């Protein structure tokens, strides 16, 4: 736990020091939301219906930039090898990093949420539930995202390879998060959002331990 806390603190500190990059990722996400609204046109009803989906598409694309950056810093001076040489278990590095990535993606989601509200004008009744779905969904992106960012960081085509590896794997997260978000924003008379949220929770429950187990094989030479 000590090493997890140290790795988490280190990643947060690096995130804070590189906050210009973080802001660029947030602006990229907001721009994506804006462009997607142009694609739909001035149809207010359609915009309202698609808002939840577009929010998650923007988050997914932005997440690859954030995840790539987090491993670029690790590979720059072989810092991740340095942590292993201190005797730190790879799983501790993974959980510290995945937690920090989750927090960054969750904050990114919170920043994109008001942009989505302004552009797509959804009902604000279920916004509390949407924040909960954001927490679960970004956790579902963060664990496999951290694992695959570690894997792709060893290649030259990192920025191309990460989405190719990650996107097919997180399709269940995307579907469940979009469905839950849309239901919460558009009205959920049958109470289905809870089932989709449980699916997200199940995905997190499987992938967080699994990715922690596999991370050592991914980063070791």
């Amino acid at each position, binding site marked *: 736990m000590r090493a997890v806390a140290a790795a988490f603190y280190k990643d947060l500190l690096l995130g804070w020091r590189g906050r210009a990059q973080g802001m660029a990722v947030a602006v990229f996400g907001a721009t994506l939301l804006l462009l997607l609204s142009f694609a739909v046109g001035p149809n207010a009803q359609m915009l309202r219906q698609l808002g939840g989906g577009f929010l998650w598409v923007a988050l997914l694309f932005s997440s690859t930039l954030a995840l790539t950056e987090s491993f670029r810093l690790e590979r720059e001076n072989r810092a991740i090898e340095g942590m292993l*040489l*201190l*005797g730190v278990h790879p799983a501790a590095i993974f959980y510290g990093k995945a937690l920090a990535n989750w927090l960054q993606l969750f904050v990114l989601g919170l920043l994109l949420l008001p942009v989505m509200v302004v552009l797509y004008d959804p009902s604000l009744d279920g916004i509390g539930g949407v924040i909960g779905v954001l927490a679960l969904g970004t956790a579902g992106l963060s664990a496999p995202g951290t694992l695959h960012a570690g894997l792709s960081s060893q290649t030259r085509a990192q920025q191309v390879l990460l989405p190719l590896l990650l996107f097919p794997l997180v399709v269940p997260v995307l579907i469940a998060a979009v469905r839950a978000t849309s239901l919460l924003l558009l009205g959920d008379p049958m109470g289905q959002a809870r089932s989709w949220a449980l699916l997200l929770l199940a995905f997190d429950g499987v992938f967080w331990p699994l990715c922690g187990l596999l991370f050592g094989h991914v980063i070791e030479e």
Partner: protein
Amino acid sequence: MNETKAAIEARGLCKRYGRTWALVDVDLCIRPGEALVVAGRNGSGKSTLLRVLAGSLRPDRGEVRLLGTSLRRGRAALVGHASFTYDLLTGMENLRIAARLLGRPSGPEEIQPFLDRVGLGARGADRVQAYSAGMRKRLTLARALMQDAPVLLLDEPYGQLDPPGFGLIDRLVDELRAEGRAVVLASHQVERLSRICDRALLLDAGRAVWSGPASELPFAFQRLEEASIRAVAG
């Protein structure tokens, strides 16, 4: 520290990158308080040997034992070609994070002596991105000293350092030996290291071609050079 067991012992180490063998059946044994210099031309396997001894690379064959037990990462500190640091953080922050990961006290008052020992006492608050290559080397050295490991592995320790830095390395090797730690240095500075080390190992194309007292290393190295020139000419 256990004086009866070898600080680090390697038997039959082999390491291959693709089809190229970087190490072939390398044996070595260093006692606590000893300094060993590993010499050889570029590509002879020096850096690979040190990374295997640190546990950073897995050998394809052979075994490394540290104080009589199987090698675990973290028990041999490595100062390699990479600095293992984060450019966005200060020197002090880099060491504090290393201390936290090691479970050591990480307050500034605990970290400052390590910065002072490598001559970075006044630059700890600067970001590493503002450091010169020599300063990064010193910071990596401080990080390795913080590990308090029984074996210190220094790969090209004089590389990027200024003349006072050369003196720092020489002093550190003496101090570490006096503390009963084993030091392994890989370098081209055979003349200098033959004066401060006890024993030497000469590598050529991944094989240990000579081992003996460090004082005889310059002659052995010269013989190897002459033999390779003859081989190319003939």
